[in-house]
């Protein structure tokens, strides 16, 4: 599957506009959702996550010539996504978007956790509120992790990248990454103890 990504990238690097657009379109279609999910969990703002995802794909497009097939496409993609997310968090774009997103968010997005959601076909309103509250507790616990641990958890748990990829993105050894993940999950286990209930 990943070899296929590399082949698509090779086509995206080609000078033929039609082949380039087709290849790039395939990669956007395949990774649009994972990239938006990752960025949403980093910045917690749907509108900003989507804006940043667009920026990620634009950067991929602009830098397509510099991609080397020896590297996995997802490693390259999520390294760019990580940089874009960290830059946004550091330059305070999150706060600015939060201030304007109520008026500016025009995207027709199915919002599974949106506060304006009323219809509840899968359960009672009470159940939905409990799920939302649990999700919010998890978000706060993950958000409180040190930056590198947070990134490691998001890339490992939610993006399911392999150790070598995450280590390359975070610029550390695989062994260091495994220890990092252990410490992150240990911290989360303590912070989320109320949610674990009978699981522990």
């Amino acid at each position: 599957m990943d070899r296929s990504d590399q082949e698509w990238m090779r086509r995206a690097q080609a000078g033929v506009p039609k082949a380039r657009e087709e290849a790039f379109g395939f990669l956007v279609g395949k990774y649009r959702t994972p990239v938006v999910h990752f960025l949403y969990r980093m910045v917690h703002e749907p509108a900003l996550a989507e804006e940043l995802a667009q920026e990620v794909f634009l950067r991929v497009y602009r830098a397509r010539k510099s991609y080397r097939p020896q590297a996995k496409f997802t490693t390259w993609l999520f390294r760019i996504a990580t940089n874009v997310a960290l830059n946004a968090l550091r330059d305070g774009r999150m706060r600015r978007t939060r201030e304007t997103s109520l008026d500016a968010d025009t995207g027709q997005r199915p919002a599974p956790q949106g506060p304006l959601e009323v219809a509840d076909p899968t359960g009672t309103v009470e159940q939905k509120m409990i799920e939302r509250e649990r999700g919010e507790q998890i978000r706060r616990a993950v958000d409180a992790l040190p930056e590198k641990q947070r990134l490691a958890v998001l890339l490992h748990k939610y993006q399911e990248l392999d150790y070598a990829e995450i280590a390359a993105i975070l610029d550390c050894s695989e062994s260091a990454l495994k220890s990092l993940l252990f410490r992150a999950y240990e911290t989360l286990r303590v912070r989320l103890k109320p949610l674990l209930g009978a699981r522990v």
Partner: protein
Amino acid sequence: MSEHLKEEQFVVYLDARLEAGERAALDRHLAACPDCRARLDGLRAVMGVLGEWNAVEPSAGFDARLRARLAEEPSAAQPWYALRPAYAVALAAAIVLAFGLAFRSLAPPDAIPAPRVARQTQPPATPAPQQVAPTPTPTSPTAAQNGDELAALDNPVLLENYDLLKDFDVLFEPIAPEEKKSL
């Protein structure tokens, strides 16, 4: 195996990415070590709970917006000046100006035409106090002998822009003789 699990082994164990031999050794230790077992159960539980945090889906207009932004991106096949015509015009103007300045600074003093002011200090042959529109100065015999280029120096407007016009002669198509005469 009597040693407790190392930090880096817990997550790999839970991900089921251990080799069979190592896995069997850890299983033997876990069967005999309640501490490691409790730790492992705690990590397994928290990794399960984390799955309850859902993310938003991309909006329906995501691809269309991205396509629109990509359409504004410069294509690798096009040179930059093809995408920004204003840059090309500015560059051409800068080159012309640079040539003009270089010609002015490098040329020997006698190659630079005499300033118009000096010509005007010469008393006119006949006073023309009622003159409103400038009339072409009659071509002097010397200028006529040296051709059109020197003849043009007698035209005050052309004289003022002599350097630029000279550079244009170098850079662009030479002016047809009939057109030159009309100047």
